[in-house]
């Protein structure tokens, strides 16, 4: 997995590329999000377009990231989720807890008030 990031206003935007598995790169994602939270960031947007697949260990990393933002009153938002990833989020019902938006613009506009209806 390749991870590139940029800060825009009060949001951290992460672009992911490749596979999200339980390897060291996934830990890097969790670490990056934790340190953003510590530095005051409340909104993290994960652009998933380049993700070819996620396994269940990778899902665990996403859950850990989601929880660390939640605990600090912030939110982790997913945008541009490929079909294959959407399928796995559906089967595991994680689509009922994760905040998923079509585009970065949608994710930025939504209030920090919990998941979309």
């Amino acid at each position, binding site marked *: 997995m390749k991870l590139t990031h940029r800060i825009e206003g009060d949001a951290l935007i992460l672009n992911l590329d490749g596979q999200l598995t339980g390897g060291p790169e996934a830990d890097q994602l969790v670490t990056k999000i934790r340190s953003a939270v510590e530095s005051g960031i409340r909104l993290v947007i994960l652009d998933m377009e380049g993700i070819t697949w996620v396994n269940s*260990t990778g899902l665990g990393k996403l859950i850990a990231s989601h929880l660390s933002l939640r605990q600090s009153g912030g939110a982790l938002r997913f945008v541009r989720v490929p079909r294959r990833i959407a399928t796995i989020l559906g089967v595991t019902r994680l689509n009922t807890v994760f905040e998923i938006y079509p585009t970065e613009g949608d994710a930025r506009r939504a209030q920090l008030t919990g998941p979309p209806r």
Partner: protein
Amino acid sequence: MNETQTITFSIPSRLELLPVLDRLVQGINAEMGFEDEEADAISISIIEAGTNAIQHGHKRDASKIVDFRFDLHDDRLEVTVHDSGPGFDIDAVTEADPTLPDGLLRCSGRGIFIMRQMMDRVDFDFSRGTSVRLLKQKRTNGRA
């Protein structure tokens, strides 16, 4: 094709090699005529089984080999994933449903659930290490 064709594949226990497995499975899905959601389901499940063999079965010891066997039948695909690890208590795993409210945000324990949701059949055999057997039926409209 009129008879079963068996393809075998083996890799050292490294998570970094799972993308290679993924490509291979894409090729097998194309050959079998599995598409879209069905092809995704098969790929995802085989990768989960491979991940478990590497992570739990072999504790990422790259000197240990994970073996895959693909039996391409006219009407179904059967895949067996084998590791030489100690096995585990499948009944204990089966009890924990990760989609119930208190399980939903646990960080692990989702792999076998995913396989069972996505494949038509998932069997475990612990007689010689751990073998997971995954089965996916072809929809009948695929062939006359």
